[in-house]
């Protein structure tokens, strides 16, 4: 039986030089969202900024991608960073949950949104306040737009909240 999550959710999605985050208070209510740059000393900077956000919003759970899952396509540095976030959660006594990428994609399959941009578009429809951050469709020669991190984080949060989908 699916049990809906009740509580404040912080989802974090690290990228190569930034991380995206969202704070959801209810399945339909976004409290904060954004991208934080971490150009120097990336791991420490990310952990410090995540810690700041946790202190501000006191989430009931922090959600990250399950980089240990076979469906993860993350590079080694990001996997290490995500594990550092998990350890940080344990240190500051915040519950951390991991969502496999495959589960996240499945959560949006019903909306006919199998691609990253498709998922971002579906999220922008559900949460109009982030629509202005929707990047253009990426062409092969383009680097990934940092703003996708907001949508990746939001996708994690929504997958967690909507489907009660979490693994420990």
């Amino acid at each position, binding site marked *: 039986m699916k049990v809906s999550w009740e509580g404040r959710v912080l989802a974090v999605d690290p990228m190569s030089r930034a991380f995206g985050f969202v704070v959801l208070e209810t399945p339909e209510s976004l*409290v904060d969202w954004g991208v934080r740059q971490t150009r120097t000393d990336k791991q420490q900077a990310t952990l410090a900024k995540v810690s700041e956000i946790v202190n501000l919003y006191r989430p009931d759970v922090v959600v990250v991608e399950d980089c240990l899952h076979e469906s993860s396509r993350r590079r080694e540095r990001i996997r290490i960073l995500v594990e550092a976030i998990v350890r940080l959660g344990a240190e500051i006594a915040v519950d951390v949950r991991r969502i496999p990428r495959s589960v996240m994609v499945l959560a949006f399959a019903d909306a006919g949104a199998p691609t990253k941009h498709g998922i971002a578009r579906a999220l922008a429809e559900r949460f109009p306040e982030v629509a202005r951050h929707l990047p253009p469709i990426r062409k092969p020669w383009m680097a990934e737009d940092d703003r996708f991190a907001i949508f990746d984080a939001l996708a994690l949060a929504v997958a967690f909240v909507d489907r009660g989908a979490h693994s420990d």
Partner: protein
Amino acid sequence: MTSTRRLPNYLRAHRKRMGLTQKDVAFVLGYISGTKISRHERYLREPCLRTALAYAALFQVPARELFAGIHEQVAAEVEKRARLLAAQMTERRKGPASRSCSPDDL
């Protein structure tokens, strides 16, 4: 799974929904810079009544919703003291025969 208490305020959420910067909000509220806005958003300072009402007018959201966590806290404190007052008033109505007199009764 816990029930989460409301945050002290939701100023940042509403500001971002409107696509405004802290500097924009500061201008509308009559501040020189966004510093005070930042402090309000990070719960470091509570705005005064006029500023709270200005936020409500800007975001078109009632102040009790905008400052939901503070409202909850204040309402709980008021309810507690109101119950105390009600108990005291009940005692007073019973009259001096039912209790010993004190200077406060005069």
